[in-house]
C-alpha cells in the first residue's frame, strides 16, 4: 500500500485528491447521458448498477485515501486546493466515506423501490449530484464553497423528496422541505455576509485570523453572523429550531430518500459544521461575547429531548424514525457542544464522527426496511407491523438489529458509538450533557422496542400478502445490518481513525 501511496503522491496531480467527489459527479452525468442516448425508459438494472457502481468506486477511492493517509499529517498534512477554498484531509475523507456508502445502499435499494416509476434516471442522477454536494461540503474550506456545496446538496434533495409527484404526502413534504430549506439558506447566506462584513474574507483560516487579530470591534455583527450560520447548519442537520421540515420530509419522501437525507445529508451537515466552527471560529480567536459552544449545548439538549419525546408517542413508524433522527442529531451535536479550549476536543469530535458513521448504517438500514415494507404494501403504523417477523423473519431480524443499535444496546455498533459519545462528553467535563443523553436514550429504548414488540411479540392482525423478496432492498438492508453488527468488534479502528483525524483539526 505504501508503495502505491508513493506512486500516487508522485504521479497524480493535486486535484486528484478530490477524486471521490469527481467520480460521484461524473456518475451523475453518465446517468443523465444514459437517459438521453437510451431511446425510451432505460433499463433499471443498468441505472441502478451505474449509480451503485459509481458510489462504490468513490467509496473505494475514499477508503484507499483514508488508509493511505492522504491529506493526513503522515503524508504532509491537509491538501488544500483552489486558493484554499477546498481542503482534503482525514475528516473530509471520513465523511465522504459515510456519504458514499449510504449513497451506494440507497441506490441498490432504489432498484426495487422505483419499480414502475418513471424518470428513474433523473432520480439516480439527482441522488448522485446531491452526494457530490455532500462530499464537497466535507471538503469546503471557505464560506463560499460551503454555501455552494450546501445548495448543491439541498436542491436535488428538494426534488427527490417530491419525486412521487402523484403522492400528496411526497409533494407536501417536498414543499415544506423546500420552503424551510430556502429560508434557512437565506439565513445562512446572510450570516455569511455578516461574517464577511466583519472579517473581509470567506476563507476559514483568514476569517479566524481576522477575528482573532481583532480587525473589527463589531462583536454584534460577528455574533449575528455566527448564530445565523449556526442556523444554516441546524437546518442541514435537522436540529432545533430548524428541524421542522424533517418529520414531514422523512415521512413523505420515498423511503430510500428519507434514508439518504437522514443519514448522508445529516452527516454532511455535521462535516461542514465541524469544519466551519473549528476552523473559522476557533474558541481561541472568536470574540468572547460570541459563545457558540453554549449555543450548541442548548441546541443539543433541546434537540435530543424534543426528538426523543416526540418520537415516543408516534403511531407511524416512519415518522417515529424521523423524530428519532432528530434526537440523534442532538446526540451528534455533543461533538460541538462539549468542545473546550484546550480540552480533549479531538476525542469529542471524533466520537461524534464515529457515531455518525455507525448511524449511517443503522439508520439507513431502518429506513430501507421501511422502504421494503412500503414495497410490500404493508401499512405504516405500528399495528400494521404486528407479527411481521412471522412473514419475513430475516428482514425482521435486521430491523431488530437496527432498532436495538439505535437504542444503544449491544452487541451492535450503536452501543459503542453512543457510549463513546457520552464517554467523551464526560471526559471533557460535561457529565450533565451525558446525563441528559442518558435519559433520552432510555426513552428511545422504549419507542424503538415498540417496533420490535410489534414485529415479534404481537399477533398478526391480518395476513400479509408478501409475494416478492426484492433482491435489491434485501441486499441493502442486510448489508446495513451486517455493517451495524460488525461495527461493534470493528469499532476500534473506526473510533481511532475518527479521533485522529478530528484531532488534526485543532
Amino acid at each position: 500500500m505504501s508503495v502505491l501511496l508513493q506512486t500516487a503522491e508522485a504521479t497524480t496531480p493535486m486535484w486528484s485528491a478530490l477524486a471521490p467527489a469527481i467520480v460521484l459527479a461524473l456518475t451523475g452525468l453518465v446517468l443523465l447521458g444514459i437517459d438521453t442516448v437510451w431511446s425510451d425508459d432505460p433499463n433499471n438494472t443498468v441505472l441502478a448498477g451505474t449509480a451503485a457502481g459509481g458510489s462504490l468506486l468513490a467509496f473505494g477511492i475514499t477508503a484507499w485515501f483514508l488508509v493511505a493517509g492522504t491529506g493526513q499529517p503522515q503524508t504532509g498534512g491537509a491538501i488544500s486546493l483552489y486558493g484554499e477554498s477546498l481542503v482534503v484531509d482525514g475528516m473530509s475523507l471520513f465523511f465522504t466515506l459515510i456519504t458514499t456508502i449510504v449513497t451506494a445502499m440507497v441506490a441498490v435499494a432504489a432498484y426495487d423501490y422505483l419499480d414502475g416509476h418513471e424518470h428513474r434516471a433523473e432520480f439516480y442522477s439527482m441522488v448522485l449530484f446531491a452526494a457530490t454536494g455532500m462530499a464537497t461540503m466535507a471538503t469546503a474550506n471557505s464560506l463560499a464553497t460551503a454555501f455552494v456545496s450546501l445548495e448543491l446538496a439541498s436542491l436535488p434533495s428538494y426534488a427527490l423528496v417530491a419525486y412521487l409527484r402523484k403522492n400528496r404526502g411526497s409533494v407536501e413534504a417536498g414543499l415544506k422541505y423546500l420552503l424551510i430549506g430556502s429560508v434557512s439558506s437565506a439565513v445562512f447566506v446572510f450570516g455569511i455576509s455578516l461574517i464577511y462584513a466583519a472579517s473581509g474574507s470567506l476563507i476559514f483560516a483568514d476569517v479566524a485570523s481576522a477575528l482573532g487579530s481583532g480587525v473589527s470591534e463589531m462583536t454584534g455583527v460577528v455574533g449575528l453572523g455566527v448564530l445565523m450560520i449556526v442556523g444554516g447548519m441546524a437546518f442541514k442537520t435537522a436540529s432545533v429550531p430548524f428541524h421542522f421540515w424533517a418529520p414531514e420530509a422523512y415521512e413523505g419522501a420515498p423511503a430510500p430518500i428519507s434514508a439518504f437525507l437522514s443519514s448522508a445529508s445529516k452527516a454532511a451537515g455535521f462535516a461542514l459544521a465541524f469544519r466551519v466552527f473549528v476552523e473559522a471560529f476557533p474558541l481561541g480567536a472568536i470574540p468572547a461575547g460570541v459563545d457558540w459552544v453554549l449555543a450548541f449545548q442548548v441546541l443539543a439538549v433541546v434537540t435530543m429531548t424534543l426528538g426523543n419525546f416526540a418520537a415516543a408517542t408516534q403511531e407511524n413508524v416512519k415518522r417515529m424514525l424521523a423524530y428519532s433522527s432528530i434526537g440523534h442529531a442532538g446526540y451528534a451535536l455533543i461533538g460541538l457542544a462539549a468542545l473546550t479550549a484546550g480540552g480533549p476536543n479531538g476525542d469529542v469530535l471524533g466520537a461524534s464522527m464515529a457515531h455518525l458513521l455507525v448511524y449511517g448504517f443503522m439508520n439507513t438500514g431502518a429506513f430501507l426496511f421501511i422502504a421494503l415494507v412500503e414495497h410490500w404494501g404493508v401499512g405504516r403504523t405500528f399495528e400494521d407491523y404486528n407479527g411481521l417477523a412471522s412473514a419475513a423473519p430475516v428482514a425482521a431480524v435486521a430491523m431488530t438489529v437496527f432498532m436495538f443499535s439505535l437504542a444503544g444496546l449491544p452487541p451492535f455498533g450503536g452501543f459503542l458509538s453512543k457510549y463513546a459519545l457520552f464517554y467523551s462528553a464526560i471526559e471533557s467535563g460535561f457529565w450533565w450533557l451525558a446525563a441528559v443523553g442518558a435519559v433520552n436514550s432510555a426513552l428511545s429504548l422504549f419507542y424503538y422496542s415498540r417496533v420490535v414488540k410489534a414485529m415479534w411479540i404481537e399477533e398478526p392482525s391480518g395476513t400479509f400478502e408478501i409475494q416478492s423478496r426484492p433482491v435489491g432492498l434485501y441486499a441493502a438492508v442486510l448489508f446495513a445490518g451486517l455493517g451495524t453488527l460488525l461495527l461493534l468488534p470493528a469499532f476500534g479502528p473506526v473510533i481511532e481513525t475518527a479521533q485522529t483525524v478530528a484531532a488534526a483539526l485543532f
Partner: protein
Amino acid sequence: MVPPEYYLLLSAAVFCIGLFGILTRRNALLILMSVELMMNAANINLVAFSYVWGNVTGQTFGLFVMALAAAEVAIGIGIVLVLYRNFDGVDVTEATTMRW
C-alpha cells in the same frame, strides 16, 4: 463615503422585509419571492463590504448567490407546480396531511 453601518442597516431592513413576507404570505410563489429578497439582503452586504475591504471576494460570491437563488426558484417552481396539481392551489397552509 457612506459609512458601512448604513449598508448593514439597509440589508437588515431588506432581510426583515423578506422574512415578514414569508411569515405573512400563504401563497407559495410569494414566499419564494420573499426568500429572494432575503438573499439579496445578503448580497447587499457582500457587495458593500467587498468595496469596504477592497477585495472582490464579496462581489464574486454575490454572483454565486444570485445563481443559486435562481436555481432554487427553478426547483421551487417545479414543486409549486405539483403542489398545485395535488392540492389544486398554491396555498401552502392547505398541505397539512402530515402533522404532529
